[in-house]
């Protein structure tokens, strides 16, 4: 466990240093949300309807930014070999990387989402749902994303492939995430938050093993 904590701490330190991807994802998230009213107009009622969905889609896209370097950086500079030879094991590497990616990208997005929701005139009743759905949903995005990142490890421009691979897999998370927010905008109970929680739980539990399998196949040939 100590080795996993070491890897996590190292990744957090790298990400927060200059050139880390932490700030980059936040800036992209804010940019997409701010850009939207220019596209669909500033009518408050319309914005209120789409706010949850826009924030969720922007959050997912922002998450993808930091993903392609998640493993590739260590793969290219020889660290992945060293990690593979450490007592950590591939499952441990995968788990540490998923948590690191969530702490670097997923959590900050969740924290600043309410601020951006103000821009989109999200009704006050929906803020708790927005925070809760992002809090539950972003780990699943990090988990699925890290599996895809491990798969595209040995591809030079693998990052371009990630959105395509992840689109169908992330659809349920976005559907239930945005659905949960919309439920509170309309003050109706549609159970979206529970489905989101179920999907997140399954995804988070399975993805370290899938990611480890992907790392193994990319390293051992």
């Amino acid at each position, binding site marked *: 466990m100590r080795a996993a904590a070491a890897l996590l701490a190292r990744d957090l330190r790298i990400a927060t240093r200059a050139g880390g991807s932490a700030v980059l994802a936040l800036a992209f998230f804010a940019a997409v949300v701010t850009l939207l009213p220019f596209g669909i107009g500033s009518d408050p009622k319309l914005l209120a309807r789409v706010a949850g969905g826009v924030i969720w889609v922007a959050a997912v896209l922002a998450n993808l930014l930091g993903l392609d370097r998640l493993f590739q950086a260590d793969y290219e*500079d020889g660290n992945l070999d060293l990690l593979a030879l450490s007592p950590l094991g591939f499952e441990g590497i995968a788990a540490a990387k998923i948590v690191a990616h969530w702490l670097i990208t997923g959590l900050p997005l969740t924290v600043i989402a309410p601020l951006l929701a103000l821009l989109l005139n999200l009704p006050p009743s929906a803020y708790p749902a927005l925070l809760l759905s992002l809090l539950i949903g972003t780990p699943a995005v990090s988990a699925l994303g890290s599996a895809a990142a491990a798969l595209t490890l040995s591809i030079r421009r693998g990052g371009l492939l990630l959105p395509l691979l992840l689109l169908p897999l992330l659809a349920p998370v976005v559907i239930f995430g945005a659905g949960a927010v919309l439920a509170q905008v309309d003050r109706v109970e549609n159970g979206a938050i529970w489905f989101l929680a179920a999907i997140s739980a399954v995804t988070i539990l399975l993805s370290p093993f899938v990611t480890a399998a992907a790392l193994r196949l990319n390293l051992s040939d």
Partner: protein
Amino acid sequence: MRGGRPVFRDVNFRVGRGEALVVEGPNGSGKTSLLRLVAGLLAPAAGAISFSGIADREERGNSVGWLGHHDGAKPQLSPREMLLFFAQLCGGARESIPSLLQLVGLSRAADLPCQYLSAGQKRRLALARLKLCGRPLWLLDEPLAALDAQGKSLLLDLLREHLAAGSIALIATHELLGLQTQRLQLT
């Protein structure tokens, strides 16, 4: 196997305690692949490899000190932070870090982010990491690359000390090491 064709076949060797084996051969003859096989990073198409009785590939990795072409220095982190990380990762002795940095001549640049270090300095940092983790089986892939004369002698001292302690080393290199070692020629 690479691209469906065997890189080398029927290669057998046995290395005892305190011995070193130099792997020679033209580029592409599979020197790196052999080292990765022994380290357990690669799965052999046929044949078996065991180190002091451990046959399982990933378990064997825990006793391997690896020095590959890349020396794994993170640009944003300083040498001290790198060594701290590796100490935590493979259970090395933290308190020995200052003396290690001194040994490899990085004490002045200890807190400088690695992006400012020269290739030789990064290589010596990797040597410090190798000694820090103290693994019994060293696998060195072209270790003398990017090392100046002083760096070479440092490597040889570490190697002699490592072998004297009864550990084993496999070295893929073209240059003469000045050590009496077994030789394995890959065609």
